[in-house]
């Protein structure tokens, strides 16, 4: 059977000593960063991207993916212990996880979060292995108009699901696309938006934009607030959940996994949404809903599983269609492009070792995470005491040298400073940078496919609705837009996302 052969290939790649090491380093760094205050996975991946250039593509992707789900995991640890989500998607875990910690049940909360994450992670990985190949086969048939509509759908759904209004998100996505167009136009050879700067002939480098928007802008706004946090639980005793805990948790874990897996596949729909949806479901299904908010273990088990499942299935659109579902995925896709691999459905056939190695490594990584986290949780907690004034110089030094080494260009560093200022402005205006980076990445592809589709249709826009697949994508995009216009849903979305701030 094909799948077994593929998985065997994946195992041989992922279990090579060097890739095991990259995986280990990735999840270790990820956990580390997920716990550190004020440093999210986006910043980390943006800063560490240049470090992976020297690695082979599989190694680079395995390590970056490890950072990504390691950070998701580390974020839940801080959510439970100190009521601070290290990462936005862990915000729900705070609600009941922290209450459990205050009642002296931090250990079981952490253990259930870990078990839920592993179950969800393994299931998500299997789903990628099962769904990836058929989806890629379908995607290989896509023409320019299908791609165009698909990208539009991704941009719309990503804009719809961020904090704030849909049109603000859309404006950010299209602004990103405009910045993405800078450089020499491949079709005509005309330099666009280069302002006569020779450093811009190739356009802005992806790393430059990512570091500016996510690292530099974050530092500026973080320095504006003081970082005082109280540590309630310094010691974690009694890790093992009781039999009742397990009995109460296994259903929420399975439901959360299913919910997260589905929401993760949709481009743009986030882990945050998945964890909130799971929390709401569990509270609705519970016979004792009044316990929620006062340390209900279901409120930890469900959302943590959903969050992790979505983190895994995010890779499905990213790897099979070349369409990133979130800003973090956009960064991973950018890393792939820098490695010389063109994202899209052909990745699976042209680089099977990369695809299957990554899939299997995620499974290994999930197991590694539990081994790393549960026994060492006490050691991780001390990281919370690291003051931000030590962290930001480290981020600055590594990003600056990293950006410089991409093209050995000092101008790139100056461009990153420029994007830092822009990014700070965006932050202050409550304009989410996530759609911007998606637009930046997809902009040139969108133009190319739009141009091709219009060339084939002799300038008629109707081709986008007469082709069934393309029409379906546009329909979903429209649905997202309409949903956001319905005041009740828009309000509930904002309530749900508000708490991540």
């Amino acid at each position, binding site marked *: 059977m094909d799948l077994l052969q593929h998985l065997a290939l994946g195992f041989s790649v992922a279990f090579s000593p060097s890739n095991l090491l990259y995986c280990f380093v990735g999840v270790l760094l990820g956990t580390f960063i997920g716990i550190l205050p004020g440093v999210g996975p986006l910043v980390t991946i943006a800063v560490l991207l240049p*470090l992976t250039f*020297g690695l082979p593509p599989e190694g680079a992707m395995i390590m970056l993916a490890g950072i990504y789900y390691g950070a998701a995991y580390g974020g839940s640890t801080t959510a439970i212990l100190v009521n601070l989500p290290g990462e936005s998607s862990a915000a729900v875990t705070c609600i009941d996880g922290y209450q459990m910690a205050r009642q002296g049940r931090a250990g079981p909360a952490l253990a259930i979060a870990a078990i839920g994450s592993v179950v969800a992670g393994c299931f998500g990985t299997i789903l990628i292995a099962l769904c990836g190949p058929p989806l890629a086969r379908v995607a290989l048939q896509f023409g320019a108009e299908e791609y165009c509509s698909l990208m539009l759908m991704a941009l719309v759904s990503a804009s719809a699901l961020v904090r704030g209004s849909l*049109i*603000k998100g*859309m*404006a950010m996505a*299209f*602004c990103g*696309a*405009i910045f993405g*167009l800078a450089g020499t*136009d491949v079709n*005509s050879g*005309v330099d*666009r*938006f280069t302002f006569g700067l020779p450093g811009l002939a190739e356009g802005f480098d992806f790393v430059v934009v990512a570091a500016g928007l996510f690292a*530099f802008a974050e*530092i*500026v*706004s973080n*320095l*504006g607030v003081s970082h005082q946090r109280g540590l309630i639980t310094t010691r974690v005793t009694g890790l093992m959940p009781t039999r009742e805990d397990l009995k109460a948790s296994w259903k929420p874990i399975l439901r959360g996994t299913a919910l997260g897996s589905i929401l993760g596949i949709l481009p743009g729909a986030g882990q945050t949404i998945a964890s909130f949806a799971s929390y709401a479901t569990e509270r609705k299904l519970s016979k004792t809903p009044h316990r929620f908010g006062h340390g209900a273990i279901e409120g930890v088990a469900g959302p943590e599983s959903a969050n992790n499942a979505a983190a895994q299935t995010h890779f499905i659109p990213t790897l099979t269609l070349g369409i990133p579902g979130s800003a973090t995925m956009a960064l991973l896709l950018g890393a792939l492009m820098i490695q010389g691999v063109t994202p899209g459905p052909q990745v699976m056939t042209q680089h099977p070792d990369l695809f299957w190695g990554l899939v299997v490594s995620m499974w290994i990584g999930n197991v590694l995470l539990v081994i790393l986290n549960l026994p060492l949780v006490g050691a991780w907690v001390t990281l919370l005491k690291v*003051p*931000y*004034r*030590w962290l*930001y*110089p*480290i981020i*600055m*030094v*590594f990003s*600056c*040298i990293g950006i*410089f*080494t991409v093209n050995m260009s*000092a*101008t790139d*560093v*100056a461009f*990153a*400073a420029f994007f*830092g*200022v822009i990014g*700070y402005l965006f932050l*202050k*205006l*409550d*304009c989410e940078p996530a759609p911007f980076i998606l637009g930046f990445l997809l*902009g040139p592809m969108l*133009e190319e496919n*739009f*141009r091709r589709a*219009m*060339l084939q*249709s*002799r*300038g*008629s*826009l109707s081709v986008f609705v007469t082709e069934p697949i393309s029409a379906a994508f546009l329909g979903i995009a429209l649905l997202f837009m309409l949903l956001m216009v319905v005041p009740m849903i828009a309000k509930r979305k904002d309530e749900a996302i508000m708490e991540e701030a």
Partner: protein
Amino acid sequence: MKLQITKDLLSGALFLLIGLGTIIIAQGYRLGTAANMGPGYFPIMLGSIVALIGAVMLVKAARNPETSEIIQTWEFRPLVFLTAAILLFSALIDTRGAIAGVVVLILVGRLAGREGSMLELAIMVLALTAAAIGIFVYGLNIPLRLRPW
């Protein structure tokens, strides 16, 4: 009624500016037709969408200022010193080498935060410079110029 400078108002203005700027710059590129697009076609399309959204936001925010907030504070100090530190690094790394660049980056960057003792700063400069050079130059074999001479 006095105009309230809310976040939405400023965002609208910013988008309008970016959109119009894009359209104006793209005037210099050949437009072409829908069936045969020139380099100016897509940028003008995007610019128009962004400008339109910006204009709508601007009008809406001016009419209903209560739907948005007013920015309370700007972190001018961190913004100025952090940007200056990065630009100085960019200016120094080619001419004076990576060590000078990193040291200046940390020192000027500290002015952005203004926290911690001088001793801490000195340790930070030494440790970070050593770590960065060690990782990039010796670990990853990237040929960075180190010294000013």
